[in-house]
């Protein structure tokens, strides 16, 4: 059974015309209320046409699925919005968690007041999307995240309760995506015209084979054949979600993951970025990838995590060097900390700025930590004493870990790690370590 979590929104999100200006009211839900203010941000958005198109695309992404049944697809999910550090970010996943998208409204893209920093789920309903699609170039759009007034929703009927499928997928995916972002490298910036040409080369229908982004002369195109410098993109039909935005962009930036485990794109508009990332294959969600697992086994003292949380909450950004200086913590520890904290969902990664930002997901840490089956599996192996280190010398570690009926052989040597289990044999470490390797590593740390 898939895990679900019930949201209870205080009221329905809506877009209303008040005195000729559009007011976008986004209802919030938060599992870990940190501040008390019901409203995070209230202000005017400068580029309403582009923003509303981006939000519609985000909503389309959140409602799309590339490997789920129509029944699962019928259950809707909502994006997350973060207000803080003078930026507003809307983010979400496709149902299958294989596509991630984020709308970053940059500092100069809004004119308003950040009453409090925070992250919340947002109710994106059909009437709201319908209203967004009516926004034209010179309209005025006022955004309010959270609730303007307490007591606005006294009527019992205005409560909306919605069961959301697999939010755990999202939470796992969100942590993995940040990790992948931090390991992604800038590759190309291409112009609007080149981007239009590029997107015209996406084949129609569901594409099962991998495609590659290649440059031929001045043109960029997607080709089914790889070359030495090409960027691999699995399930390329997922990029079609971006097609309506491409004619509106200024430029497109492309960031492949260092091991091609994800491909990320930044659609740059004036005062607005749309970040889009697809997993290695359409049938692989970010949630199932184990890229961040090894950082999660890193044991850091609770006090350090707490110190970080307080520091970042008040600063809304994460500057490792500054934090190291101000809090008197060794910089190498801080780097480990940043990996672990992004894996825990406390840090987001801004590709354009090449750095982390503080974004506390509206979910309890214990929930995030308890989600990963491989991590849970590794802990269970250790609990039941099923890990046996048989050799540990000269940077070579051999271990035997109980599997079903037989013992798996784990080898850690010269920075490489190998296991005889099916998961490792199939993926060769590309999708993160298996539970056997994780268990051995954790045992070595204890």
């Amino acid at each position, binding site marked *: 059974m898939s895990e679900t979590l019930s949201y209870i929104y205080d009221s329905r999100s809506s877009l209303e015309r008040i005195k000729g200006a559009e007011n976008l009211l986004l209802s919030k839900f938060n599992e870990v209320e940190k501040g008390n203010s019901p409203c995070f941000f209230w202000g005017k958005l400068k580029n309403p*046409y582009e923003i509303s198109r981006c939000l519609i695309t985000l909503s389309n992404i959140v409602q799309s699925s590339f490997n789920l049944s129509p029944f699962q697809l019928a259950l809707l999910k909502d994006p997350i919005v973060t207000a803080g550090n003078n930026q507003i970010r809307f983010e979400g996943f496709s149902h299958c968690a294989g596509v991630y998208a984020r709308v970053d409204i940059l500092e100069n893209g809004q004119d308003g007041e950040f009453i409090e920093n925070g992250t919340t789920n947002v109710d994106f309903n059909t009437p709201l999307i319908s209203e967004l699609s009516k926004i034209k170039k010179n309209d005025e759009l006022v955004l309010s995240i959270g609730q303007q007034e307490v007591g606005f929703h006294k009527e019992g009927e205005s409560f909306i309760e919605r069961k959301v499928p697999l939010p755990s997928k999202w939470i796992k995916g969100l942590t993995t995506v940040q990790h992948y972002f931090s390991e992604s490298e800038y590759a190309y910036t291409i112009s609007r015209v080149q981007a239009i040409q590029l997107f*015209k080369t996406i084949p129609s229908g569901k594409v099962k084979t991998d495609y590659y982004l290649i*440059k031929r002369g001045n043109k960029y195109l997607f080709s089914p*054949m790889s070359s030495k410098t090409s960027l691999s993109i699995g399930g390329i039909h997922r990029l079609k979600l971006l097609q309506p935005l491409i004619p509106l962009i200024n430029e497109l930036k492309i960031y492949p993951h260092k091991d091609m485990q994800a491909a990320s794109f930044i659609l740059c508009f004036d005062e607005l970025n749309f970040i889009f990332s697809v997993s290695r294959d359409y049938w692989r969600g970010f949630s199932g990838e184990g890229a961040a697992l090894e950082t999660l086994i890193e044991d850091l003292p609770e006090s350090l995590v707490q110190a970080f949380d307080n520091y970042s909450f008040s600063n809304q950004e994460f500057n490792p060097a500054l934090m190291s200086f101000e809090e008197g913590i060794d910089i190498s520890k801080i780097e480990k900390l940043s990996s672990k904290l992004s894996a825990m969902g406390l840090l987001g990664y801004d590709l354009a700025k090449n750095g982390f930002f503080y974004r506390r997901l509206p979910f309890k840490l214990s929930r995030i930590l308890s989600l990963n089956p491989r991590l849970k599996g590794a802990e269970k192996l250790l609990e039941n004493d099923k890990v046996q280190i048989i050799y540990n010398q000269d940077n070579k570690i051999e271990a035997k870990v109980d599997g079903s*009926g037989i013992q798996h052989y784990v080898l850690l040597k010269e920075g490489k790690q190998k296991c005889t289990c099916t998961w490792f*044999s199939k993926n060769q470490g590309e999708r993160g370590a298996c539970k056997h390797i994780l268990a051995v590593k954790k045992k070595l740390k204890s």
Partner: protein
Amino acid sequence: MLEKELTEIVLKEKDIIPFLQSLNDKDKRSLVPFIKKFRKKINETYIVEEKAGWGTYNKNEFKYSEKKRDLVDMACFVCFNKTDIKRAIFNIANLSVSDEYLKKIIPWYVPKWFEEVVNKGNPWELNYDKMMQLFKQGLINPSNGLIIRRLPIWIIERKWENNIADLYKPERLLKYEETLKDHIWLLFEEDSEINNQYAYLNTGNHTGGRDLWIETIISLVTEKRLDRQRVLIATIYTSTKGFNKSLSGWFFDLLIKLNPSIEEILSLQDELFSVLNSPHSKLINTVLKYFKQLASNEKFKFKAFIDNSSIILNSETKSVVNSTLMILDKIAKTHETIRVEICIKASEALINLDEKIQSRAAKLIVKYGDPQNSTITDEVSLYTDNLFHSTKELLKDYSNFEEEVQETEHYAESLKILSEENKITELESLDDLIFFVSQSIDNNEVYHIDLLLSYLPKLNLLLNSDNVSKLEPVFKRALDLSMFRNSNSQIGQLESDAAFYINDFAKLLLKKYPDKLSDFNKYRDTKIQNLLETGYDKTSIKLSLEEIEKHPIHDFIYHIHYSLFVKSKILIRKNLSVGFLCTPTHEPCWIDPEILLNRIIKYENSSESIDLYDFQLAFGRMPLYPDNKEFISKIDLIKDLEIRNIFKYHFDEINIRSVKINRPDLWLQSVLSKNNEDEINYFQDQFNYKLIKESGQYNWTCQLGDYIFKSYDHSKRKLVDKTGTKIELRFKDFYTEEVKKKSVVSSIAGVFRKKRMPNKISSIYEYMHFDISKYYVVIWDNDETKFLNLSPNNPSSFLSHVIHHNLKESTFFDETGKKNMTNLLKGLYEIWYRADYKESTYLFLACGLLCSEKVARELAGELWIKANSENNMNNVILGKTIGKLQYGPYAPFKRFTDLISANLFNVSKLHNNSLLIVINNMFSEMNETPIRGLKKLLELYHELLLKFPETKLNNRSKEKFGKWSETKSLKPVIQKILNISLKNEGS
């Protein structure tokens, strides 16, 4: 007490209502556990054997009467809470609104869950009228979803009895005030069945169109029962509700029928602009039609239109782009001040690969633009690479188009066949070998099975009682795979076969180290036991555990690998580490000549004889043109004179006529690899043996021909053979010789045997074919590239079989055929390194360029681009082959011309020239009767010809042009081509 009473009422089928009425809340709660059990009992069934005309069948019968079951359901209805009732009664929503319940129970008891169950359950018993009555009685507040589901069909009165026609009754909408005031508007907000054609209805009183609801709404508007302005706005805004294409299109049909006046359109401009973001072109086209009427009107919000035009100018639908350009043209005509802005917008349409659209955009720019305005010229120059010659002519004042497309550069990086980058690391250590064997059955790389054959004997020599248990997980995986065959979509049959081979290895080791592999042994016994207990077929289990020699071989072609598996087992048994000659040293299947040389010497120094297939595979994988030729001097270290000569011949060090050939089967692969017509003829004459199947060289046609199919004859009451005609690619003299399957053991006899069969050259090609009658899937996917890589120097033989089985028509019979095609094209791309392949290879490539799978066409296109960049493509043969295929025609021409426009055109000057050669040679082989789509090809040819006006047309092409120009639509473009040609000849 209550339980006893209820039991008696049900069993004696008494009236239950008084009893239920007497229950208070506490009584009801206390009865729930009993009712649950009781209901289960009353619904028990038993099996009855029934007779039918064709035999007997089993039928379930209830033990208790329907009446008793109904009585218990009533009790459930009154006593159960929401969760229990939903679990107990599947169709509770229908039961709740049934006439019986509404009459007997609802008047005195309405369950708390009643409203929710009715709203969510969407009961078919509940029509709109009944729903409204329940609403009026205060029993439910119908949800929007329920109203939307019930309202559309309410205008029809269904008649079930006596075949009386259904009646169209729009007046029903007037019965309740809420219907027109609120409910009808919901149909504009959420997904509904309003667009249902109701074609199945036989509405006797309505003979008009089938779009009853469009007529209904129009009438309601005409009668002023619905506000026209509100209907217009609501209809337009349906485009923002995310409806599907059909429903969105229906609403815009309604809009068209509402026929808004110019004044109305002017007042609705803001609403209409929101439609331009719709993904459905019909909606956009409708709105553009309205805007065209307004374009010259002074109240038209032309600035908003210009703002919104980027998205529609980039539409995939040509009519949308055309209409947008027309409106921009009209705006520019009226508003002089914004002409620059309009020209810049119009240039966005230059990205379109349609010549007419480019031309329209260019004309607009020329008409209203200023060549001195750098904003316009800068914008136009962005699209230079994309423009047709005619567009460039039009825009010649706006940009300098003289710069030709760049010379090819992207393939400067192309790999050498043997380089450090594609070198396969040789594994030596125990750990490396264990982890390799563990992944060898996952098909992570196409050459892993080849490596496994050499690595398992090598690993065998490193095992001892201390380390052998590390292999247990590997053995477990192999055992699991062999039990359940090909359950993994990423692997092929060969991986399953490799699992049998690893099983055999496990058995050998189990004998040697029973204590060390006890966990695996135990696992295997338990697994077999479990499978037997769950009814798994005993014979299948037994077969899975058999040695590989005793396994049935799937198809002829698998013999080659099977023989290698068996040979590898011999090496393991003998504790030999000589390995195989054919193990690739470079990805995907190549062998470094020096390494092969050393392997031969190693064999000669051992007691083991070389296997014939191993030898043939090795020479078929040895590239002809290695960069480094230092190894040549070492060839003389080989003791066997004939092998030495073959090696030298392979690298042009000796002439085949200068040496004596004793064992042609050893020479075969080098003769085929070199593919020298003269040498092949000499070889054939020497041994009175034609290398037909070996070279895959057949005569073929692609024309209309007869074929036989089975059809049911009603008079004869049986299936009979009938003859039909279809266009098919056929090999006229395809190799059909029956091959008797040899036992695997005899097939691996050493090459140094004394007797040779006369006039027959034994080779891997004897097994390189498929038994079509045996399997539904002819070529298993994920194995095909491994077959191609059996002989990369000579792919034509294998590819001829793929053509024969999969490519007779350009559409694929199944998904496997498509996968075969894409996998093989990727494989061929990797091994393509020369231009002189036999025709079957070019035919395969041509089929790839024309087939119905777009990915395959693009792959074939990429192969063509790469091969041309490296000067490894015979464009004359390719062009003739495509032309001959299109004589049929084999495939719709649009596939090929679209591929040219999108992928092959303007790659580089070199590629444009190659493309010209391809098309020129196509013409000479094509049918005199022009086929559909030829015009586009001629236009592309003309475009290319303008780039290379010195090109000479061949005479056969000229003849074709003469015939084709009799067709009116082709005449102008042919004339343009001939004009260039004439100029050329004149100069």
